């Protein structure tokens, strides 16, 4: 309420000042556009003068000699200050310019009345102290101070922001909103007036009526002198957090409180607050912007060093009770904008007493079809708004009429391409696959239309005839790999209901059929071609089970993964891109015919996931990697993941497009899909386990609108054969202020996007430089942020970062240490690295965060509790070795595996109870399987695992057990996942923070 009030009063005195210091009044472009007045919506026209004013005001202080610092309130200094005060003050206070800024302000200062105390530290004392008392390194006093979690020295601050409350008290200062525009106004000047500026900026800030008398001011000063940081930060309420860091780099004690560093122990924070501000937006689980504030100008974009974009999860599972409403427009047809084809949404406005509607994306006035007409009430709202979900909800589904169908909805079809060479037989793979598929037959989506087919291959292709009139499937072998042909015109892909018994008898006999197979070759390429021929009419899903390197026919691959010499050279990245263009061409063909490919890879040795995965990458598929698959240990994982893949609700034959308002444009897309035109993503199959990320760019140099709208539209065929359009609509404000962008930043989305960009960069660059780029981005953005705040608050020795991005440094460190980007040749096998990279490209935000920063729980303490209390008492721990107690039992969950770590001092009975065997007799823990044993502890333990698995059904976490000190397994499995610890060549969290801090300061 206050800013508008101030904005309505553009103080005329502001202009003279700018004239008076012409040299200083060169507002850098971002500045002019940005300006301190963060919320221009109401003040439209008046904003620009304000934007210009502050720098001018800054300049005004150039003149006065530094001796004015102390602010003796003496008459001479007052002169310049009085004149220069109004411009900066204008927007906030109705303070009369004549008022002596340093005199005790009348308590009746309207705008500040709400938060007077927090202002106090900003009255005269601080500036006087900084340059003079503290001297050059204002940092030194901070070094002494323990860290952010120190109680505030003054109890003056009143954290008001909603964000402030959630955090440990002192570092987050809730600041009254009206002041923030004020502070942010100043910073851009900083680069322009480097060193000596701070002292003079302070006075400007103190201009706003000091609500306290001189006595009070001095009191504050005293307090300030003691723990300076707290005092300074008092009024920075809400905006940022800071960390005290030693100013003496290199000293043994880094001066950082390790425990005080921010850690995302609560996992992902969905920006649900936004739902309150924008209740018509779709839920953030479907669409998240990296910052919910679109920059108004190019210059602002260039100062926002983090990616600007969004993460879209179009089919995210919605909790019960929030099902997506389905709308059928019937004969009216789907209502869309004539020009930009936007679907009708809650942000569309109606005009001409309801006969027209204005598209919120392109502002075109469209006719409302007669069937859809409804009168408007006095406020221009349709009477039936609440009855129509498309006008009141951000997420809806439309039933698509015939125009949206190129062909009738195809039945869901599953085609299995199974490698039956010797390694697959030996590892027990065939048996698990056959059993799992058989158990899923009842649950395959799309009954009774579902189609199914199988093709097995080694050095030859084996087709199987499932004609419903047969009692046993017929196998036909095609040995000609150069010119693949289909031995039968149909009955290779059959209706499951009709041929159920044939399919079942095939699956029963599959393991035995190839039991004695000693063929080591694998003709994947020709098999893919054959599968394509079978499926090309209908499309559907192709599941490839590959257990060796493809060695025959077209698409054969070489062993190239174990080339140590390539690492660190310019050729390093070529190992991570597909070697043979065949796979990408094949993928393009598959997508064109609506076939999605899922790769299941089981090889012990190198199997070139990089090449195989590109099939999944361009067809909207997924890569599952089970290194050295052995049925007894990995069987469960494969079984449950294959089960999930086959039975989850899938959207077929889909295309997705994201429209956005004028001025912005989505430029790059990251995920598994094929780009059909510049902005149309072709997705042969898509489900709730896949998310997409995209980057945004500004098309115009200056945005004129106040809000930008986004609309995600996914046109798909459901398994039941309905053609639907799922539409998510969201709005985001346009801001002219960088600090607002920081405030609305969404760490989860940023990390997700950054991670995908990094993985993509690793396909064209060395791992090392990818990691450096990540670090550079982080440093640049924190530096920019620092420039916004640090100087006038003189917290030079501290690392400051926005509250919204407090976990970003740790997450970026975690990305650098993630399976896909970690280390070099020896740290991760090439296949695992590529598989992790493919996973990171599709994981939704929360699962990605859990993947790069796994959850660590101490389990032994909760095992003895009552079963129903266990869930609540499981606490996530920081990922550092210091948290591991040798007498404890820990569980690490990264979404793909469970790692059970047994401390050295753990009571043997406990171990025996849980593992069901004596540890001493079981030296090799890698083959161990956890089964529920008949005792309380084991039951509780398995219950914990079950609840954790239920949280994320998309993958089945394989449970692995490791003992403390059991090298090298411990190092590989656990220690490399302890992201906060120092590993070979990587820094620990503390070092990382120090490193970032040093770089932001330079």
């Amino acid at each position, binding site marked *: 309420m206050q800013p508008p009030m101030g904005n309505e009063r553009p103080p005329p005195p502001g202009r003279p000042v700018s004239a008076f210091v012409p040299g200083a009044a060169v507002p850098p472009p971002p500045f002019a556009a940005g300006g301190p007045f963060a919320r221009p919506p109401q003040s439209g026209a008046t904003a620009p003068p304000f934007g210009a004013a502050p720098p001018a005001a800054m300049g005004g202080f150039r003149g006065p000699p530094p001796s004015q610092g102390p602010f003796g309130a003496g008459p001479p200094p007052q002169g310049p200050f009085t004149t220069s005060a109004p411009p900066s003050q204008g927007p906030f206070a109705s303070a009369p310019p004549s008022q002596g800024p340093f005199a005790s302000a009348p308590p009746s200062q309207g705008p500040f009345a709400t938060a007077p105390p927090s202002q106090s530290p900003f009255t005269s004392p601080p500036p006087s102290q900084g340059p003079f008392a503290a001297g050059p390194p204002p940092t030194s006093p901070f070094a002494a101070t323990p860290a952010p979690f120190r109680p505030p020295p003054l109890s003056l601050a009143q954290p008001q922001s909603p964000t402030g409350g959630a955090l440990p008290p002192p570092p987050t200062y809730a600041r009254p909103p009206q002041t923030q525009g004020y502070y942010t106004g100043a910073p851009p000047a900083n680069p322009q007036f480097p060193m000596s500026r701070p002292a003079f900026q302070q006075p400007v800030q103190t201009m706003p009526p000091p609500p306290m008398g001189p006595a009070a001011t001095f009191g504050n000063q005293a307090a300030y002198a003691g723990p300076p940081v707290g005092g300074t930060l008092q009024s920075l309420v809400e905006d940022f957090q800071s960390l005290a860091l030693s100013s003496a780099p290199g000293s043994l004690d880094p001066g950082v409180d390790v425990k005080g560093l921010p850690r995302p122990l609560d996992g992902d924070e969905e920006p649900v607050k936004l739902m309150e501000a924008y209740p018509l937006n779709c839920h953030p689980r479907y669409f998240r912007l990296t910052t919910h504030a679109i920059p108004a100008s190019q210059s602002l974009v260039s100062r926002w060093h983090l990616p600007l974009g969004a993460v879209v999860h179009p089919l995210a599972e919605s909790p019960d009770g929030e099902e997506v409403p389905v709308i*059928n427009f*019937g*004969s009216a047809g789907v209502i869309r904008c004539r020009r930009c084809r936007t679907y009708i949404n809650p942000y569309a406005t109606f005009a001409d007493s309801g006969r027209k509607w204005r598209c919120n994306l392109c502002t075109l006035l469209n006719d409302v079809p007669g069937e859809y007409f409804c009168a408007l009430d006095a406020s221009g709202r349709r009477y039936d708004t609440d009855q129509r979900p498309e006008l009141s909800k951000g997420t809806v589904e439309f*039933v*698509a*009429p*015939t125009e949206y*169908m190129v062909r*009738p*909805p*195809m*039945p869901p079809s599953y085609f299995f391409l199974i490698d039956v060479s010797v390694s697959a037989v030996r590892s027990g793979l065939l048996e698990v696959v056959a059993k799992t598929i058989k158990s899923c037959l009842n649950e395959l989506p799309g009954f*009774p*239309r579902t189609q199914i087919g199988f093709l097995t291959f080694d050095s030859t292709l084996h087709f199987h005839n499932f004609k419903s009139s047969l009692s046993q499937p017929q196998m036909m072998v095609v040995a000609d790999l150069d010119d693949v042909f289909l031995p039968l*015109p*149909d009955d290779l892909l059959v*209706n499951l*209901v*009709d041929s159920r018994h044939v399919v079942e008898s095939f699956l029963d006999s599959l393991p035995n059929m190839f039991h004695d197979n000693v063929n080591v070759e694998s003709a994947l390429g020709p098999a893919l071609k054959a599968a394509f021929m079978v499926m090309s*009419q*209908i499309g559907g899903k192709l599941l490839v089970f590959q257990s060796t390197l493809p060695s025959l026919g077209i698409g054969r691959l070489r062993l190239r993964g174990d080339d140590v010499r390539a690492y660190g050279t310019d050729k390093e990245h070529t190992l991570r891109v597909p070697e043979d263009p065949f796979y990408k061409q094949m993928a393009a063909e598959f997508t064109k015919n609506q076939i999605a490919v899922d790769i299941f890879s089981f090889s012990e040795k190198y199997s070139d996931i990089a090449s195989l995965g590109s099939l999944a990458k361009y067809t909207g598929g997924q890569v599952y990697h089970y290194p050295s698959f052995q049925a007894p240990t990995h069987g469960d994982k494969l079984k449950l993941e294959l089960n999930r893949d086959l039975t989850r609700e899938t959207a077929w034959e889909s295309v997705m497009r994201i429209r956005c308002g004028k001025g912005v444009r989505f430029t790059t897309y990251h995920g598994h899909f094929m780009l059909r035109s510049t902005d149309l993503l072709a997705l042969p199959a898509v489900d709730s386990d896949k998310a997409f990320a995209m980057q945004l760019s500004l098309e115009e140099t200056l945005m004129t609108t106040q809000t930008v709208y986004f609309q995600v539209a996914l046109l798909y065929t459901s398994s039941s*054969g*309905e*053609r639907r359009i799922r539409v998510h609509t969201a709005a985001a404000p346009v801001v002219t202020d960088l600090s607002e962008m920081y405030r609305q930043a969404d760490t989860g989305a940023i990390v997700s996007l950054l991670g995908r960009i990094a993985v993509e960069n690793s396909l064209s660059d060395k791992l090392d430089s990818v990691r450096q780029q990540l670090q550079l981005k982080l440093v640049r953005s924190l530096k920019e942020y620092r420039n916004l705040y640090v100087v006038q608050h003189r917290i030079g020795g501290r690392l400051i970062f926005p509250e919204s991005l407090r976990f970003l440094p740790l997450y970026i460190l975690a990305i650098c240490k993630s399976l896909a980007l970690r280390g070099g040749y020896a740290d991760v096998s090439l296949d695992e690295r590529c598989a992790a990279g493919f996973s990171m490209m599709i994981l939704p935000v929360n699962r990605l965060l859990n993947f790069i920063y796994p959850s660590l729980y101490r389990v032994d303490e909760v095992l003895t509790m009552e079963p129903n209390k266990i869930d609540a008492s499981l606490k996530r721990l920081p990922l550092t070795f210091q948290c591991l107690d040798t007498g404890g039992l820990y569980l690490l969950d990264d979404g793909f595996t469970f790692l059970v770590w047994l401390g050295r001092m753990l009571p043997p009975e406990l171990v025996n109870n849980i593992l069901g065997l004596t540890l001493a007799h079981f030296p090799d823990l890698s083959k161990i399987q956890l089964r529920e044993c008949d005792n309380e502890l084991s039951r509780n333990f398995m219950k914990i695992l079950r609840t954790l698995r239920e949280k994320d059904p998309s993958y089945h976490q394989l449970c692995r057990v490791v003992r403390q000190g059991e090298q090298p397994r411990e190092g590989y499995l656990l220690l490399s996942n302890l992201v906060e610890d120092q590993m070979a060549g990587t820094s620990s969290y503390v070092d990382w923070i120090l490193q970032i801090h040093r770089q932001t300061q330079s």
Partner: protein
Amino acid sequence: MVKLTMIARVTDGLPLAEGLDDGRDQKDADFYKQQAKLLFKNLSKGHHEASRMSIETGPYYFHYIIEGRVCYLTMCDRSYPKKLAFQYLEDLKNEFERVNGNQIETAARPYAFIKFDTFIQKTKKLYLDTRTQRNLKKLNDELYEVHQIMTSNVQEVLGVGEKLDQVSEMSSRLTSDTRIYAHKAKDLNRQALIRKYAPVAIVIGVVLMLFWLKNKIW
């Protein structure tokens, strides 16, 4: 051999079901599908045709039957016996009515009964080979008066609508033109009348005026 099978509602041309993987190894399938859709549209406009009809198009024939506001259409080779084709459609009709009969009117979305395609698929297979015992028997049956079914060309059928439209348009233009003509003629008549008698009337008027003035003055 049956190439294409489509089922649509006659009232509005809404497609209800379609045979699966029709058009395999057939490059012009899309063209004929388009034609079939046009045909449905034509039917829905209410140019009511016979309830059974064969329409020749290129190397194929469309055969359709309309029953209970639903049109069952199939496309076959020219050589495929008409009798079998209609028998096939009859089979589809019976099953479709049995399964979905009461929902046909309420179906709101296209391909609402797409599940029917499995039945289409199965039935189609029975009719694939014309020389099976079963089909031969059917061929010999004289149950259906197939030879009475009209045959026409697709261009004609699709063109008929257009021509009719043209004729009605022309006739309506003719009526409106006549009306204008009549109006104009009346107008002209009036003008001619005025032109003819106006001078006389004016002269008489002047004379009368003079008389009147003379009376007044005198």
